[in-house]
């Protein structure tokens, strides 16, 4: 007998109740999450943007945030940030429509991110207010490593992509039966570790610094 058959055989013989129709099971599963607000941390009275900024810049998440008036201000804001942290003009900008449309003259877009002090600019698909997180998906115009290799991670987030909770994200991805990208990652601040004596240290393997540029739609 195959291992699969052995496992299913053991599970079915352990069950004390008879099998139920799939629709009944689906209904019971849906009922268990029918009222997500019961288990979601409440933040009534705060706007999505206020909550997002407060969480992203909190001591536990450690990102910095710059709110810009227009998308065209992004290169200037990147330049100011690089100056502030004492970095040169070497950056890697994600090759996507939103960022390609901007004027990147003045930057040397050829960094070697595999070495250690690189800086990348990437576009978040969504921002989650609950935790100050940003969401990325892999794709043709979205190499996932761009979000993990640099020491400095500059994230562009559009205000119209802000959502309250992770539960609000799942329907936006098309539901259970829509084709999904290879990888979806919810990133909350920078790479960290507490593996030595439970002391929190940033820049474990991924970015040590995250700077979020919030732009209008």
């Amino acid at each position: 007998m195959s291992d699969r058959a052995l496992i299913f055989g053991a599970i079915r013989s352990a069950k004390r109740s008879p099998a139920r129709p799939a629709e009944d099971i689906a209904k019971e599963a849906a009922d268990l999450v029918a009222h997500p607000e019961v288990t979601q941390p409440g933040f009534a009275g705060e706007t999505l943007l206020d909550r997002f900024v407060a969480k992203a810049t909190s001591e536990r998440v450690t990102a910095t945030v710059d709110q810009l008036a227009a998308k065209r201000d992004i290169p200037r804001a990147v330049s100011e940030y690089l100056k502030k942290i004492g970095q040169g003009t070497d950056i890697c900008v994600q090759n996507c429509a939103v960022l390609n449309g901007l004027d990147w003259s003045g930057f040397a877009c050829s960094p070697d991110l595999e070495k250690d002090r690189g800086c990348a600019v990437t576009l978040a698909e969504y921002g989650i207010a609950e935790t100050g997180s940003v969401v990325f998906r892999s794709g043709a115009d979205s190499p996932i490593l761009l979000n993990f290799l640099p020491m400095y991670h500059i994230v562009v987030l559009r205000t119209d992509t802000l959502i309250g909770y992770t539960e609000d994200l799942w329907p936006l991805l098309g539901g259970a039966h829509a084709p999904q990208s290879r990888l979806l990652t919810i990133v909350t601040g920078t790479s960290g570790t507490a593996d030595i004596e439970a002391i929190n240290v940033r820049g474990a393997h991924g970015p040590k610094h995250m700077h979020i540029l919030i732009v209008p739609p």
Partner: protein
Amino acid sequence: MIQTSDRFKEHVTRALADDDLKIALSRTTGLLQARRRQVIDEYAEYGAARERAGAIKDHTLAHLDHYLEMFETNARANGATVHWAKTPEAARRIVTKICTQAGAKTATRVKSMLGEEIGIAQALSDAGVERIETDLAEHIIQLAQDPPSHIVMPAMHKTHEQVAQLFDDLHDIAPDTHDIPDLVGSARRELRQKFLSADVSISGANFLIADTGATVTVTNEGNSELTCTPPKVHIVTAGIEKLVPGMAHASVFLRLLARAAIGAEITQYTTFYNGPKRSGDADGPEAYHIVLVDNHRSEMLGSDLQAMLKCIRCGACMNHCPVYAAIGGHAYGAVYPGPMGSVLTPALSSLKAAKDLPNACTLNGRCKEVCPVNIPLPDMLRNLRARQWEAKLASPVTKLALGAWRFVARRPKLYHFATGMAVFGMRLLSLGRTRIRRMPMAGGWVKYRDLPRPEKGSFMQQYKASKHAGEKRP
């Protein structure tokens, strides 16, 4: 790792004499408890979330065959190859075969307790593949050739001074200083190129999502995504109990897991893997395998150990266990230490091979109190003790002591006399202080800690005295 739980007492003696271990444990457990307390206090909906998480797990386990089939169908539709392994040996054979077929020379690995359970290190060595641990703690214990001592922080038994020594000796470029941030920097420098050049990556899964076929990892380091993207093959090994019905159900657990494990609202990276590289993708593996492992889980289903299948491996029970805090994880001699390990190890091996573990518990109940899915660990440990008694596995000393206690407890006059004498004797031994330093027949106890001095008179003596005083009052 080879299970040595049968030598628990020997391990404990060694652990209690290890001064470095004492320092390492005292530097960590207090911090972890305080961080957890703070985020739980801030989460007003914690009670509701905990109750809901337990209900979701109960539902999933009640329909485990249904959800496993659903997961398999959806994972295949995503492009994954799904394998089934009844035993650790079968799981190792599958991993070895995938590595051999891929012609792999090196494999980067993301920490996973299931991987430890099935012996991934052995599987890779069988395939002639060099194993590179990428989680910082796993990297440390790989260099030290130690087994993990905690399910979330496998190197909890090491002080930073010990880590510094290891890195000085074994890293290509020694750390700049022995401060913790520089030690982290040294590991980053040492591992970066290895992430990018490995042939195969191996991760576990914190959750399996039935209705999308996704596997989920949560990490703080981002090592999972860095590990599982560059190599041409990605292998996921996961226990069959990791299933949840859908993404919305996973949301409930993600909030609880990070809070219970590390005292954060969410880990830095929560990632859903849906298969191999899509056509046109800029990066990602060509092949994606999921190995679903049983290893006695299906036997626990429907038994009095079923609740253990709800465990989400947060480690809170060990962070709050006074026994774990005194002896660390290695003394348990098993993959899973602490309270959850003392329940799980007998189920994964045998009651006899792990007979001391259910007894290494004070039944103070803190493990259940901090468990994010409310597993009744103390009750389960008590049941295991009862089963040991029935299977005649209790030690002669335990049998004798319980026999003596039964004799005395059935004779109330003798019982009151004996407890009165014990209290009197203990107060004498306290030599006027509030703690007892030395006590005959309790050398094992007072060697490592003091006993509190009892109140004057036994409970019954005090009760009678107060009743007598009450009657006298007008």
